[in-house]
Every structure is written in structure tokens, then in C-alpha cells.
């Protein structure tokens, strides 16, 4: 009789529908597969498409204690026009900031189509009472956030209180109202891919629109294998129920080359339908300039200098 870890019976998918089996993940094989996918090489024309797509998928992020309105305004300008020297370069998907800076971002981005995403729920640790975490969410939503990036309670997860994690996601989803919800698993703290798979299923059951790897404050943050693991969960959910859940790797993605590797993993696991900012985002800050640099190189055939691109 095979014993697999069981999810609490209370878990069900939004709108009914059966969760896929929890199962297990073999770390060695997963990492080998991710390594293989990283070696794929894409056509030059596709490369330009991929680089532009990477920009359109970016959540340009600043989450520092030292963030000020000035910093956020500058970053928002960059978000709308990443390369002032080339107006054909698209805007990013969103900026990602702390709740206290949401209104600044919103004003700066008015009329541009770039969304405002806010972290919430006592980001990054999640170690606060639920009512405080929900107030955090409401503050961000009231200030005009389009998207909320919450953190799961890893303490609860790691001590086996999976039902509690689920209920928090449900409560946060409700507090989001119309805002779309990304659930950060903080994969670097979960210890195993089996746990990542389980946390992904719990987050999706709770109503996540996106599952996200990391806060970016803990190492390791996003990796190709953990991304592959989460995409496989999304694939299983889609197979069972038809639901299309999004995914966001965040933290540690600094080069265009890496961004393309992530897109290859995405394409080979979920197919072309997922190659859209509505279902995949990059949580990044320094990535943007490397992508711009590579894009200009693809267009001109000459290696560029980082000096050619604005810092914010």
C-alpha cells in the first residue's frame, strides 16, 4: 500500500474540482532536467521576441527599508520607458513596492498600463497575527494596488499546520477584492522539492492566481529546478481542472541569459499558452538593464556597455 502525504480534507479547489495527487519529486532527476533545459539555444529572431517578452513580464521591484517616494518615482519612470533611447522597447508588467509607497507608484504610473503590485502580509517573514496581515493587505488595496504578493506562513507550514496556511490564503484572497493574488512560498526556506510541491498545491487551493518562489530576501531564491517543480504542479492542476495558474520566479535572476533559460523551461513545460505576462512574471531589478543591453546587441550586432543604460 503506497503512502503519500495527504492534504487536509478541507482543501478543495476554487469552484470545486479535484486537486492533483501530491506525490513526490525526485530532486536529482528534477535538477538534471532543469539543467538540460538550460542548454537549449533559441533562434535569433526568437531571441528578440524572448527578450521583449521578458521585459513585458517583469515586475520591476524595490523592497528596501531605504525606499523613498523619490526612488519609487524614478523606478516608475524606468518601468514605463525602460530605454529612453528606443521607444519601441515595451513597458514592464508592473512595479512592486511596499504598501506605504503604493500611492506614489500609482500616481507616477497613471495612464501607462503598468500595474502596481504590492507586497503584504508582514512581508517578508509573515510572522504577525492574521488580523495585522489582513490590514496590511487592505491598506495596499485601498491605496490602489492592482496586485498583491503575499507570503505564506512558513512557520505554520513547517510545523505541519497546513490547514492554517490554506485558511490564511483564503482570507487574504478575500481581502484582495479585485486585486490579483500572488502567493510567495519562500522556497529557499521549505527545504525540499516535495515541500514546494505541497505548498504550491495548498496556495492554489486557497485561491492563488500566481504562485511565486521567493521574497528575494532569502538565499536561495529562484532557481531553474524549483521553477520547473512549480510549473509541473501548475500543469497537473490544469490537466485535472482546466484552471490556468500563473508563476513568478523572483530573486537571483540577473542576466538576460538566465531569463531566456526560464522562458525555455516555461515553454517546454506549459507550452506557448503560458508565454504571457498574464501567466508568468519575473521578479527582478537588475535584470532589466541586462535584457536591454542584450536586446540592443541583437538589433545592432555589436556588444554594448552597461553605461549606455540608465540606472533608474
Amino acid at each position, binding site marked *: 500500500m503506497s503512502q503519500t502525504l495527504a492534504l487536509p480534507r478541507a482543501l478543495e479547489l476554487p469552484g470545486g474540482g479535484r486537486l492533483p495527487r501530491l506525490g513526490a519529486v525526485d530532486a536529482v532527476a528534477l535538477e538534471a532536467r532543469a539543467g538540460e533545459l538550460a*542548454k*537549449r539555444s533559441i533562434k535569433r529572431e526568437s531571441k528578440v521576441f*524572448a527578450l521583449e517578452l521578458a521585459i513585458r513580464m517583469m515586475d520591476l521591484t524595490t523592497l528596501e527599508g531605504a525606499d523613498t517616494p523619490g526612488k519609487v518615482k524614478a523606478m516608475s519612470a524606468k518601468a514605463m520607458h525602460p530605454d529612453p533611447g528606443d521607444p519601441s522597447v515595451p513597458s514592464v508588467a508592473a512595479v512592486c513596492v511596499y504598501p506605504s509607497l503604493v500611492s506614489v507608484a500609482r500616481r507616477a504610473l497613471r495612464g501607462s498600463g503598468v500595474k502596481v503590485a504590492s507586497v503584504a502580509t508582514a512581508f517578508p517573514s509573515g510572522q504577525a497575527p492574521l488580523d495585522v496581515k489582513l490590514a496590511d493587505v487592505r491598506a495596499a488595496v485601498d491605496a490602489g494596488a492592482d496586485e498583491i504578493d503575499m507570503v505564506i506562513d512558513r512557520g505554520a507550514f513547517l510545523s505541519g499546520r497546513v490547514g492554517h496556511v490554506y485558511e490564511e490564503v483564503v482570507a487574504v484572497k478575500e481581502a484582495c477584492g479585485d486585486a490579483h493574488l500572488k502567493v510567495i512560498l519562500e522556497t529557499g526556506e521549505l527545504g525540499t522539492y516535495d515541500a514546494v510541491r505541497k505548498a504550491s498545491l495548498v496556495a492554489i487551493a486557497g*485561491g492563488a492566481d500566481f504562485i511565486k518562489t521567493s521574497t528575494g530576501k532569502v538565499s536561495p531564491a529562484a532557481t531553474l529546478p524549483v521553477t520547473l517543480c512549480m510549473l509541473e504542479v501548475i500543469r497537473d492542476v490544469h490537466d485535472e481542472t482546466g484552471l490556468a495558474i500563473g508563476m513568478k520566479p523572483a530573486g537571483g535572476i540577473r542576466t538576460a541569459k538566465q531569463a531566456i533559460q526560464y522562458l525555455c523551461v516555461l515553454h517546454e513545460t506549459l507550452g506557448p*499558452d503560458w508565454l504571457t505576462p*498574464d501567466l508568468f512574471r519575473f521578479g527582478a531589478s537588475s535584470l532589466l538593464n541586462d535584457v536591454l543591453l542584450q536586446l540592443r546587441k541583437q538589433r545592432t550586432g555589436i556588444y554594448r556597455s552597461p553605461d549606455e543604460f540608465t540606472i533608474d
Partner: protein
Amino acid sequence: MGAVEKSRKDVLPAGSWDYASSLEGRDIVSFEERYGLFIGGEQVSPRSRSWFTTVSPSTEEPLAEVAQAGAKDVALAVGAAQEAFAPWSSWRPAERAKVLFRIARILQERARELAVAESLDGGKPIKESRDVDLPLAAAHFFYYAGWADKLEYAFPGRRPRPIGVAAQIVPWNFPLLMLAWKIAPALACGNTVVLKPAETTPLTALLFADVCRQAEVPPGVVNIVTGDGSTGAHLVRSEGIGKVAFTGSTEVGKAIQRELAGRDISLTLELGGKAANIVFEDCALDQAVEGIVNGIYFNQGHVCCAGSRLLVQESIHDQLVRKLKRRMSTLRVGDPLDKNTDVGAINSKAQLDRITELVQAGTDEGAELYQPPCRLPEKGWWFAPTVFTNVAQSHRIAQEEIFGPVLSVLTFRTPDEAVEKANNTMYGLSAGIWTEKGSRILWMADRLRAGVVWGNTFNRFDPASPFGGYKESGFGREGGRHGLEAYLRFE
């Protein structure tokens, strides 16, 4: 809700996501127009005055002319090996070791060139020749170099001595790697060798002769005789050989065994297989699918230990097959020199015909065939990755070795039944077990009549890990401490 409206502008324009043909440059290797035999440290023309052409199976283009060694040529090679044996075997073992270390280093230095040559001559993807064949070949020489001066520790209580001249015949599926598996331990033990590469893949062996030159291998220690089956037959019939090592088909292996009867020549055989890849319901499912795919489509299924029978627990059959078919549709079949290619060319027309015939038998006998849509190149020999479901144990495709990218799927209900079905074959080379339960892996491993058992993985090779079969998959082991035995006699 989880579902999100996709904005229309993001729908991928047709063909916008495409893998490049990311071609490995061919210029790194340059073949001679014509290669003689490598005997006594020199390239010599064949006494037979007979030559043949070796072609690239992916394009059918001729690559070079090589010699067809006749009886006389083989005798000369054996003579050179005999002459070189006395001095070579009396070298200080530590110095023999150094020659082998040099070979290992040179294989690393020239790895890219040799990998391209291997993919051109044999048809396997550059991804494999670069990432598997070449590194393992170098590692084999490294590993056995270290044993050359340590033999007394490998066999406590016995006095190991070299045998003499080893006659070695290798197949076309891993030409250079199989050469390394043969030559490295033979030389480490103080023997000299005459090696015959396969008819369709002689080139990396001939380039290896050049590596020997660079490493300053004494003349006659390594001799390479190219040719078809008749060359191999001459070699096996030779006087003056002390040992035969053969990797190839079971049919030829039996013929060799008959030929050597009564001759007091030590023999090792590494023959065919029809390995069961056994998947339990509690496996790590997506990784098991990767393992199944790797098990049968790696190297186009031209692998003696290929997982050509998928035994899947009935409870997860449908789900697994669905995932498998979807995964198969992402396999890229094409130019072996393209770094994005997953499945290369079939090695020869003859092999392609054999695969086609058996696949036809599969459908005739009532199994259900699936092949993902696959654009195959015009020239060259190709076969799309194939899976048969509804296969019965008695079907030809469940019993006979196809040696191509064709998987047969059968089911089982319990571990006992899985063992029974897995063992129900004349072969016994390898097996795979997929389950998250450790004790079950060990329980199955205990009962599977196979020389290599892979738990939650497949097609893993290492010079330190002994490899070889039970039953009609052959006898003797290559790799590891045990791999030395075949090349020694004990006083």
C-alpha cells in the same frame, strides 16, 4: 478565481518561439581522405588491398575511406601486439599508468573534436557525444590508469599477471566509449590489444590512434584493424591471442563463444538486452517520465541496456501514458550536430530496416502505436520516437531487442508480478525501478535477474561501476575493480 484572461496581443505569432539550429562547428575535425590500418604504431595499407567508405547516417554523405582488413592484415596486427607485449608488460606499472593518464588528458583536450567526429560518423546527437561519450571515455582512462600500479590491492591473496594479446571487438552505438571500456583496463593490466571498431563507425577509433601517438604509446601496444564482420571473425580465429572481449549482438556473441570452444582463451561478452523499466504508482511521476524517455530515446534507443519495456503499475497506466506522450512530443529529432537535437539518426540502413520490420510486427500483432508528429529530414536514416501500448508479453516487440527508439508498454499489479514479468526474458542486462519506497527498490533489486539495476534513475554509467549482464546478455563485467579480472591471469 485562478483562471486569468489572456490579452490578445500576447498570443504568440506563428513560429515566433523556435529553437535555433545551434550547430556545433564541423571544422574542428578534419578527416583524412583515406585511413590505413593502425599496426605497430604506423598507418599501413591493407594487404587485402580492399577499402570501403564510411558515411554519415544523418546525410548519407561519405566521410572517409577506410581499410577492409583481411586475414593477413589481422595476423600482422596480432603479431605486432605479441611483439610489443614483452617490453610493455615489463615496464614499471607506474610508468604504464602515466601513459594511460596521458591518454585521459588528451581525450579531455581534444574532446570537442572527437565528439563532433562521433556524431558525424555514428549519428548520435552532439549533446550526447559531448556530454556523455567523451567525458566518460576520458574518465575510463583516468580510472584504470590508477589501477595499473595497484593490482595487488585489487585481488588480495592472488598474484595478478597480464594475459598477453587481447582481441577486442566493439559496436557502433558508443564507438569511442566502448573502445575506452576495452582498451583502458587491458592496458592497465599490462596487455597489448588489437581492436576492431564496428564497420559503420571506424573514425573515432582511427582518431584514437592519433591520440596514442601524442601520448607516446609504444608501437604495437594498441592496434586498430577496421573492417566488417569478416575482420572480426579473423581476429577471433587468430593464433596468439590470449583473450577476446566482445560487445555486440547476442547472435554474434554466441558464434564467438562457439568459435573459442576448446581453445583456452578467456572470453567476456556484453550482448543485447530487453530491459524492464518498472514504474510503481508511488513514484515521483514527472521524473519517472524523464527516466522512461531517457531510458529508450537516449542514443536513439541504440543502447544494449535500454529500458525498452515499460512495466507500469496498472493503477497509474493512463496518467503515465498521457504524460509520456506529451513529453515525447517535445523531443527534437534532427541534425546530430545541432545542439538542440534530442534524437539523432539511425546508424545504418540495415538497422533502420530492422526497426521498421519489428514495428510493423507490433501493429500486426495488435499493439497500439503512437508517434508524435515529427518532421524527419529528407536524406539520411531516421525513425520517429515510438511507443506501443496494449502490448502482451508474448508479442515480438516485448521479446526481441529492437535497438531503436521504440518503447513497449505493459502493465502489472503487484511487485511480485512485476518481478516475474521483468525476468521473463532470455536477456538480463539491466532494469529500472521507480518508487519512492526505499525498501521496495532493494527488494526488487534483490530479485531482478539483471546485471545492472537502476533505482529512480536510468542509463547511468561510471568507470567505477561494474557493468555487464546475466543470461544471454553476456558474462563478465566492465568497469570498477571487477572490470580488471577479465584482463589478468592469476598465478
